[in-house]
């Protein structure tokens, strides 16, 4: 076991723990905190995968924006004042479906010999990513900007209070 693997297992454990925390925690604030843990751990994974750029994006977007947004939303919806939402009778089926999917996908990926498979993690240069993003992938980039505008517009319109509210 190389040191990389050790780090991997550690980070992976954090990811799983965080994720499990999100889905099982009774208190929603705890869930949110676990989410931050999981997201940060994933960012660490990205670094392991030599995708530092994405790790940064991850930390900035999720660690910053998304979690803050979620916490804000929870405060706005005063989740504390409400009785803890029970998890319904669907839980066993949920578990069943999730486990079935987990097993299936695990078997699938482990049974697959991906073509050109190597154990080497290739370092992808920062600048080549940015190059690609603004040349080859310029169009999705543009469209993504429209998506963001739509989301922004939608969020504002829907969230803002109207007269008489």
């Amino acid at each position, binding site marked *: 076991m190389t040191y990389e*693997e050790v780090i991997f297992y550690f980070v992976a454990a954090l990811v*799983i723990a965080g*994720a499990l925390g*999100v*889905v099982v925690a009774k208190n929603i604030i705890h*869930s949110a905190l676990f*989410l931050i843990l999981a*997201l940060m751990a*994933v960012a660490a*994974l*990205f670094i392991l*995968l*030599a*995708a530092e*750029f*994405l790790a940064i994006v*991850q930390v900035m*977007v*999720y660690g910053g924006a*998304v979690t803050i947004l979620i916490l*804000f*939303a929870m405060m706005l*919806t005063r*989740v504390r004042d409400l009785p803890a*939402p029970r*998890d*319904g009778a*669907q839980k066993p089926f*949920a*578990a069943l*479906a*999730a486990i079935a*999917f*987990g097993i299936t*996908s695990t078997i699938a*990926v*482990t049974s697959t010999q*991906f073509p*050109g*498979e*190597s*154990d*080497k*993690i*290739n370092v*992808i240069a920062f600048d*080549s*990513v940015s190059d*690609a*993003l603004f040349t080859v992938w310029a169009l*999705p980039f543009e469209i*993504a900007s429209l998506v*963001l505008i*739509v*989301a*922004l517009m*939608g*969020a504002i319109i*829907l969230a803002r209070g109207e007269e008489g*509210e």
Partner: protein
Amino acid sequence: MIPINNFLVLSSVLFSIGMYGVLARRNAVLILMSVELMLQAVSINFITFAAYLDPENFTGIIFAVFVIVIAAAEVGLALAIVLRLFRNRQTANVDEADLMKW
């Protein structure tokens, strides 16, 4: 060297956990968080494939960037809708939003 399967298995486990969260939890915000977990799994997958198998085109990296962007936007929009739900009926519990059925 970390075998590629480590990442892929992790991703599938993470995806399953997220899936469980969506299916089992009742709070809209929690469901949203679970979806985020699933999208994280997707990102891990993309990056893994890009890093191990596709260093020339690294489409996976690009894809992961967009996934993250979209996920963020999604959270923003979804929270706005949840907020609207809460304003209208004082609950964030998706179970109780069953005005329309059958």
